[in-house]
């Protein structure tokens, strides 16, 4: 049964092997226009899952990506939380890295120049303990070459102060965004937390405060307990749930937000394959991010880019924008 054998092979040892270069169909323009931010293609990689890109650049040329959202960057260096920091869960994982990063000045000094040197489009994800701190980080990044946009992380569940605390209430979320808005002319993406009763409300608040775009979702708060030691597995007790497990929740939130704001949305949460990504585009996201999937399959973003292109070609579309929001009757954003 030769055909059976080939259909079976894909099931042992993970998904397929692929070349580190992209193969794209002719006649499809993958350019993603997100307001005044234009990306080569709609596939970006999510903050915290890609470091500053070095590790993945060993496997493929990361300038092929729509953008690299770098690890959450703070004003001062942070060591992060105590181990264990990660634990696997059904179709997902919890992380409580705690924003380990070398601080914004070091990122400006070494990481951003390197990203520029390899031709990558860099978006800097920032996190602070106070409205002022967010503003200060943004100010330092404002005129740095190679920063395409700032992504405001008001949704990190793994730090004591700040982080998600800002993102669950409209007034504080809006205050952070206004502060950053005053500090920079760069395009601002605000990254929303799913740990709220009504994400649409927060979305509207941060757009009103001047956010040019939104990205969603960050992680859901979760935990795992070690039943032999009778204590949480993570050193930080709780962590953020990500990966395929959360995809239906993320998609629903993108769907909702796309009906309530007109700004471009970057959709993420559990995307592994092109069909996953296409669901988010059809729901109303103008671009997507690949997060946890990078850990399970470092080449996943390349498959997603190619798969989106193939889907567009197969359905006779010439550009990505043609399918953005196409499954969502209430989509508010603009389409060509």
């Amino acid at each position, binding site marked *: 049964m030769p055909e059976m054998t080939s259909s079976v092979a894909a099931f042992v040892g993970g998904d397929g092997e692929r070349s580190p270069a992209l193969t794209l169909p002719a006649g499809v323009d993958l350019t993603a226009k997100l307001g005044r931010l234009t990306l080569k293609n709609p596939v970006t990689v999510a903050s915290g899952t890609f470091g500053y890109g070095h590790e993945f650049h060993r496997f493929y040329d990361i300038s092929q990506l729509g953008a690299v959202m770098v690890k959450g960057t703070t004003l001062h260096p942070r060591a992060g939380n105590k181990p264990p920091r990660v634990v696997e869960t059904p179709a997902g994982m919890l*992380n409580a890295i705690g924003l380990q990063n070398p601080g914004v000045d070091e990122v400006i000094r070494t990481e951003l120049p390197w990203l520029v040197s390899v031709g990558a489009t860099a978006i800097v994800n920032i996190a602070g303990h106070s409205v002022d701190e967010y503003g200060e980080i943004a100010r330092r990044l404002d005129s740095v070459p190679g920063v395409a946009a700032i992504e405001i992380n008001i949704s990190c569940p793994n730090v004591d102060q700040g982080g998600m605390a800002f993102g669950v209430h409209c007034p504080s979320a809006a205050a952070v965004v206004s502060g950053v808005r005053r500090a920079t002319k760069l395009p601002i993406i605000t990254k929303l937390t799913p740990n709220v009763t009504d994400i649409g409300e927060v979305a509207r608040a941060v757009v009103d405060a001047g956010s040019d775009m939104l990205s969603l979702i960050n992680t859901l708060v979760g935990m795992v307990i070690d039943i032999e030691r009778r204590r949480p597995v993570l050193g930080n007790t709780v962590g953020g749930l990500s990966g395929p497990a959360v995809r239906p929740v993320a998609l629903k939130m993108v769907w909702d937000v796309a009906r309530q704001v007109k700004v471009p949305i970057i959709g993420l949460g559990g995307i592994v394959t092109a069909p996953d990504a296409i669901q988010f585009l059809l729901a109303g996201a103008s671009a997507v991010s690949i997060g946890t999937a990078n850990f399970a399959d470092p080449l996943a973003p390349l498959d997603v880019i190619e798969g989106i292109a193939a889907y567009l070609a197969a359905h006779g579309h010439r550009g990505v924008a043609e399918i953005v929001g196409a499954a969502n009757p209430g989509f508010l954003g603009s389409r060509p």
Partner: protein
Amino acid sequence: MPYIGRATVTAKREFARNMVSITIQCPAVAQESLPGQFVQVRAWPGPGTAADPLLDRPLSVAGVDKQKGTFELLVRVVGRGTRLLASVPVGETIRVTGPLGRGFLEAAGAAGPSILVGGGVGLAPLKFLAEVLTAGGHEVLSLVGARNAAELPPPGELAGKVQVATDDGSAGFHGTVVALLEQMLTMVVFRSGRVPAPVVYACGPTPMLRALKASATLLGLPVYLSLEERMACGIGACRGCAVRQVGPKMAAGEVKMVRVCHEGPVFAAGEVDLDA
């Protein structure tokens, strides 16, 4: 550049109780691997087609045959990932990423007379190390610990001299491998006044590494440990496996994290905090 792609399982055998030796055809990994380095392995569908288990599993390279283009894993079946791996039939392919991380001799800087201390799956990287060291003409003594005789590797599996210790005394020294080391060091090595002093390389459960660090430091021997930490990416990207760097090189108040998967898994014992 580490290899990433499929590789074929060419042989399997039971190495010790609940521990399987798996031989994998993968010339890139066979050529490039150094003792102490590891590979990330996925022996089940996904992540796109099935997402549970989600993450690859890190496993040390336990030996290579550069001629044949194969490498060996020694896998203790402890959970679902290792069980799925152990169940892959010979002839099937799995996904392999590697070699990854920094090995023993890169951490130590040079090869010389060595004492290898391993418990449980800690054996895997030490088997490879013993082979490379003896092939280089260095004297090697391996101290292998297990709960009981059944969990010990068969005699002859490790290159060089081997001494065993079991918790229940069913084979070799009755006690831990660290206690055995203490006894041997005071009795043999120091009494012989030999120079240069041997380097100790160890891999095993964290409590063992902690005990070892304490005794060996006492005896003034250089000690290199291969650490295990829960990993997500295995390639340095997620910062999930970070441990705190300690020691004289650090400035006062300075906090620096190192990644077990990238700066490690082998570190000088004095360099890392084992107590977090």
